[in-house]
């Protein structure tokens, strides 16, 4: 399957530090997306990176994509307590018309 798998499963950092989460997948993709989920709440779309892109920025978020290694990373700079949440990567297959496939997520705790 083309599951996205994040690591680490859990990450605990101090406020102000940077947080890096990684995602690996198995098959060719059209795009890869990162979502955030606060405890018991819905999924919020953070950023989408297409297969022909290598890096993308959005505010304090930086996403990289290495299609040769089938991996992506999400960097949150200058983290805040409000960034505490679970972060999921999700892939869309090369054909672009198959469902989003989510990983298990990384649980990020930012300690004030």
């Amino acid at each position, binding site marked *: 399957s083309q*599951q996205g798998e994040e690591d680490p499963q859990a990450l605990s950092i101090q406020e102000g530090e940077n947080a890096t989460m990684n995602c690996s997948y198995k098959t060719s993709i*059209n*795009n890869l*997306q990162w*979502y955030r989920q606060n405890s*018991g*709440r*819905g*999924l*919020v*779309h953070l950023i*989408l990176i297409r297969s022909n892109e290598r890096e993308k920025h959005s505010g304090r978020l930086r996403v990289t994509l290495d299609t040769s290694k089938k991996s992506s990373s999400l960097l949150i700079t200058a983290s805040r307590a409000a960034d505490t949440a679970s972060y*999921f990567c*999700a892939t*869309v297959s090369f054909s*672009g*018309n*198959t*469902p*989003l*496939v*989510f*990983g*298990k*997520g990384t649980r990020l705790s930012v300690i004030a």
Partner: protein
Amino acid sequence: EPEVTQTPSHQVTQMGQEVILRCVPISNHLYFYWYRQILGQKVEFLVSFYNNEISEKSEIFDDQFSVERPDGSNFTLKIRSTKLEDSAMYFCASSERPDYTEAFFGQGTRLTVV
């Protein structure tokens, strides 16, 4: 900002009962989806819907499940005879395009089957 809304936020039902989960997708979106997340597990795809018919479904989406767009705004997921293992958070999502470019998810309905 437009959003996908889901009701109810929490539903408790007896095993064997039918439940209907409701969603109002974003108005100009054409593609609709249901996903579920069992507590502590991955978000799993259930079904996609376009042009008033199912375009894709997963193995989870068996004969106990059905979807409907009864009018121009609502999108529903029906579970005919609930089982304990159907307890999960159910998410509705919609997108303008079929390639999931920025799919918008609702806040979810937590279904508890007792």
